[in-house]
Structures are given as C-alpha cells and as structure tokens.
C-alpha cells in the first residue's frame, strides 16, 4: 500500500515542497526538489529523521534553578518525547560546567546529554549566561 508524504526542504530559503511516495520503508519516488540537497533531505527524512534536542535540567544549590542542556548529537525523531522524560527526571548538583555529561548513553542511542552553559554554586559567582545577557 503506497503512502504519500509531503515535506518542506529546509536547506535554503526556497523551501521546496517535496513529495515522497513510500511503500513501507522503501522509497518509490521523490519529487519537487530543485537540487541534490533536497533529494538527500527527503531521503533522510523518510528513512531516519533525526533532531538535536535542547532543553534544561533542574539544578540543586545553584545560583539558577535550571541549566541548559542538549543532546550531543542528533537523535532519532521518534525518541524526542522519551528523551524529554529522561531530561525531566534528572536533577544535578551545582556547580555545572559547559560540556558536563548530564545523561550518559541516552536510551541506548550512544548519545550523551551535555550541559551547554555553566551554573555555579549559589552565591559564589555569576552564572556565565547571566553575565552574557
């Protein structure tokens, strides 16, 4: 039973409307792209769509109550909500430093969740992104 998928290419501002026909996991045809990148994008989106997830985790005893985090590499799109559950379950102790691994091997993907900003212990020094604002 062939299935039709409509996508918008994100590689450049043109935003080509892509039309993909799928038969289960096999791609039958890709139409609507104006360059190779569009073709590749449609293929990747239909076979293994991935996204980088950015969020925050709770911090105890920090001068801010949350620290910014992200997945080190893009993870499969279908895992985004489960990834959020993992992130929301976490609570770390200050100080947090940029690059700290917050969750190792997220959901068996081999991808870590890392801190993208620092949160020092409460009352010690300014948080780095508070100073940048």
């Amino acid at each position, binding site marked *: 039973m062939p299935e039709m998928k409509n996508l918008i290419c994100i590689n450049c501002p043109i935003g080509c409307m892509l039309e993909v026909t799928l038969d289960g996991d096999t791609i039958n045809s890709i139409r609507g792209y104006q360059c190779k990148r569009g073709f590749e994008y449609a293929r990747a989106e239909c076979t293994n769509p991935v996204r980088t997830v950015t969020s925050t985790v709770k911090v105890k005893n920090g001068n*801010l109550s949350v620290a910014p985090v992200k997945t080190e590499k893009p993870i499969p799109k279908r895992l985004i909500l489960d990834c959020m559950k993992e992130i929301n379950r976490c609570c770390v102790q200050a100080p947090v430093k940029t690059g700290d691994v917050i969750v190792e091997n997220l959901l068996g993907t081999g991808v870590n969740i890392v801190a993208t900003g620092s949160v020092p212990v409460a009352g010690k020094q300014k948080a780095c992104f508070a100073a940048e604002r």
Partner: protein
Amino acid sequence: MGCRERTRGALNIPGARPSGIYTAGTAQKYVNIYGYMPGKSVVILGSGDIGLIMARRLTLEGAEVKMVCELLPYSSGLTRNIVQCLDDYNIPLRLNHTVVAIHGKERLEGVTVAEVDQNRKPILETAEFVPCDTLLLSVGLIPENELSRDAGVELDNVTSGPVVDNRMQTSVEGIFACGNVAHVHDLVDYVSNEGERAGESAADYISGTYVPDREKTIAVKAGYGIRYTVPQIIRSKSLTQNSVKIFFRVADVYKNVKLVVRSGNNILVERKKVKVTPGEMEILELKSQALQATKADEGLVVELKTNGEGQ
C-alpha cells in the same frame, strides 16, 4: 542599547488586560533561565523565530500550543524553524490570521482569532474563539536608540537605527554602532561579526590608525524592492579589506530575481536568486577596487530586478 520586543501596547489589540500575555522573549527567559512555565495552553501571535522556537520548547515542556497566527501571507521566520518547531509537533501555522480580541479578567481565558483580507483588515465572519491561558507575542523588534538620539547621531527612518559607514561609525565621529541597535538581525553570527568589526574600528580610532575621512563618501541607497541597506555610507579611503559587504533586506517575497549593486549605469555586482524573502538578510560583497572608481556624487544603489514574474 539593543532591541525591545514589540509588546501588546505596540499592537493595539483590544480587550481586557488579564495576566498570561507575554512577549516570546520574556517567556523564553522564564522557561530557559528560571525554569518557570508561563501557562498550559498557548496561542502564539506572529511567526518570528523566537515565537517558533518557543512553540517547540513549550510543547516539549508539556504545554499545548494551539496555533501560531501570522498576519502576513508568509512567515517571517526561517523555513528550518517552521519545519522543526511547528510541523514536527503538528502545530498549525495560520497565515493571514490575527488576534482581534482578548478575553478574561484576572487570567487570560481565550482569544478571538480572525482571517484578514488583502489590506490586513480582519474579516469578522471568520472570527473564532480559541480558549487558552497564555498568549505569546512574537511580532518583531524595535531598535532602542534614545542614547543615540540624545548624542545627536543621525538615525535611519527604516532601520530605526543609526546611519553607519563601512566601519560601523555613526554620523558622530568616535561613536560606533553594531548589532540589533543598528538593524535587526536574524542570525546571531552576523551580530557577533558586526560587533567585531565595530570593535576593531573603535580600537583603530582610539590608537589613531583610523582617521575618519569625512570627504570622500559614497551614499548607498535602497532602490527598487529593497527596504534598507547597512552600511548606508561607504568612506572609500577607510577601506581596510579588499572588499565591503553590504547587508540588506528585500521588501517582499520575490521569485527569480537578480540582486544588483550599481553606480549610475555601471553594475558593480549582481547575483541571481531563485527566491528572496524579507525574513532572510541578504549580503552582496563589493570589491574595493570597484569602489575606488565610483564617483561620490553618483553613489551606489542596491536594487532588485525581476523577470516580470514577481510575486
């Protein structure tokens, strides 16, 4: 100084004044820095990038984002954000729609959303009540220039920022401007880059290696289809690099056009584009050599040439 987000006051949306109405940037700060959720069911007005990113962020944190309304027939945000922030989470983007009324006394209880006609006037028959406890506004930024004005710096009516030259110097010698105070940027990388250039110029000015030349100036004008350019002035004697980049925005969505910089009838640079939109800043690079030959009285014009099938 920098930019302020356009608020409800700047939009004149009628109705009550309950809590639950935030600019997208304020909501972003609450969620990302302080860990507070602004509400549970959300409508977003305006499709600016911060609004789109907040639609995803709030969805992931457990809120229900009902829709994003955009007054214009196209989004002002980047395509990437529409796909990855709205389409991924099945959040509808309603183009040609706006919020026409706000309901609720203590807390927001809902908004009335309506389609608009070609003159951007709401069509009353299409009005629809959407229950929600939070309204985010992502409707653009206004550069803040009270200090510049007090210092006697000449401002550009379109950018609402100072008129700057190729070294980011304003009309007052020794005052430099960069970032969102000069014009609103879409990507932070451009802001950092502009900041570096302004900083370098200011350092050179202080150390005396850069003496601003007030005489040989070339005016850069926005021609057909172009809303504004930065810089607005090029001082050809103060060129430090082999080229000068002109940043600009187009006035509307156009397809199959050429972006051109010319001096009189002499075309200095041109570039073909399949599609241009006001949401994406455009850049053309001019060789310094070409500029040396430009007559100051002719100036430069940045313009858009269509093949007669503009949109």
